[in-house]
């Protein structure tokens, strides 16, 4: 997945300005930047979940599997089943745990009861939730803790077998233990998926990112391997932000 010459305007405001990015496969790409820098808009542009935003216009390309996802012929629903997304706050539906896991995938195809059971088990194991909930799959999903709910949301996305998973600050409403659980899980998930991850927590980026993208004031200031960027950033702005979490752009 890659982005080229990409601009986003919301009404008059120029939110993203000439973005060039590449998201290497089977790696975690972390997007960091101060709040209001456009990092959320950026990640939300990658599966067109921003489409319903009032007054949104885009220019440029977002390529996925060699095709521009902003092309008119693209089936947005199909795109989103291949480029999954997890949000800041866990969004669970008023259904049971297992129904939540298959909620998306059963819209795509007819599933037998055995299929469903298999998908539920596989997906929950991938997010390390299976041992905690296998005895109460028919309980309401709202009985889970927030951290568990967020992992359930990730399991629900994995059930669709996407190629890319977008995570928009998925741990910002979680406690430290749940945060660690999700970080560990992401490190395992990158074997099978390409992960794009927005965070405002620089330490978290340091722990899990393979690649780092620093966004400030709607522009990509710097991107590259995380290990390099943390120790030898080319831009002084990046250095300032990574060290002090403050940046003047």
């Amino acid at each position, binding site marked *: 997945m890659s982005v080229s010459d990409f601009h986003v305007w919301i009404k008059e405001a120029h939110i993203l300005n000439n973005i060039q990015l590449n998201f290497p496969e089977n790696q975690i790409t972390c997007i960091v930047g101060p709040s209001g820098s456009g990092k959320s808009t950026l990640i939300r542009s990658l599966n067109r*979940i921003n489409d319903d935003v009032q007054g949104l216009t885009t220019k440029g390309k977002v390529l996925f599997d060699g095709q521009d996802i902003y092309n008119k012929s693209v089936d947005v*629903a199909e795109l989103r089943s291949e480029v999954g997304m997890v949000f800041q706050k866990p969004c669970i539906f008023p259904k049971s745990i297992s129904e939540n896991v298959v*909620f998306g995938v059963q*819209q*795509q195809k007819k599933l037998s009861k055995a299929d469903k059971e298999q998908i539920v088990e596989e997906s929950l194991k991938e997010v390390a939730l299976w041992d905690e909930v296998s005895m109460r799959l028919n309980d309401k999903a709202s009985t889970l803790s927030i951290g568990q709910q967020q992992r359930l949301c990730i399991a629900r996305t994995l059930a669709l077998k996407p190629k890319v998973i977008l995570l928009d600050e998925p741990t910002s409403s979680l406690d430290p233990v749940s945060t660690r659980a999700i970080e560990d899980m992401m490190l395992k998930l990158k074997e099978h998926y390409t992960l794009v991850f927005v965070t405002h927590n620089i330490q978290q980026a340091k722990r899990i990112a393979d690649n780092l993208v620093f966004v400030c004031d709607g522009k990509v200031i710097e991107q590259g391997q995380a290990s390099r960027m943390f120790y030898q950033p080319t831009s002084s702005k990046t250095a300032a932000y990574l060290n002090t979490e403050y940046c003047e752009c």
Partner: protein
Amino acid sequence: MTRHRYNLLFSAFAYSAVAFCGALLIFLFGVIIWKGISAISFDFLFSPSRNFGAEGGIVYQILGSILLVLTSALISFPIALGTALFKSEYLTNHRWQKVSNILIYGLNGVPSVIFGVFGLIFFVNILGTGISWFVGAIILAIMILPTIILSAYQSINSIPTIYREGAQALGFTKWQVIKKVLLPQGINGAITGLLIGMARAIGETAPIMFIATAFSGVDVPSSLLEPVAALPTHILALAQQATNPNALQNAWGASFVLILLVMTFSISALFIRIRRQTISQR
């Protein structure tokens, strides 16, 4: 000290306002129940009226009213739900939102007698349907549309955006989002609105008196284009025979039955609303 006194004064005002409302309601219900209950009997509820309503019962009036209001609900509900979904999910333009509000509140503000006159001119005269219960149901359906639209719209629109985005992110099309997420969570609000609308429709006299009802000589209609008897118009007709004590007695009885029917719809609406709150608080 003055602050304290104003506070007391205001509390006293609020309490007495509540007491006044409560007393009014109890008085009204008290009179209707007191006067009405002596007219109620098995025969009154289950036999047709005789001698222009002064004798006999109100079985066809009850059936007619229920037929009118159920049919109007069947006509109104899908249209209102569709309008509410359109307004909440498709109408993004701010100006058109305002226009739609003006239209809906405008329709809500039309006095009920105007609906009756409209039905008389448009259906009965121009389309030549004659006095027809089905036309009455259509007019009642139009009359209760805004109530259902607004209630359904509010409950659908108040579902947090995160649910829409969460479902879209799982590859749901817009229709799937509506069918699988918004309708299951918003339908209670729509049904609340429907019941409130039905409670209003069943008590209305003016919209149906010219176009849908007849006072005597009617039973269960065998086609769409026949008149029915209905409770509110029956009460009106009986009340006009104020010299006949039997007719007045039956008018009180019919009022009592009508109040019971209205309360059934209103209280069901209340229960559904309470249940919805407890679900969202969970």
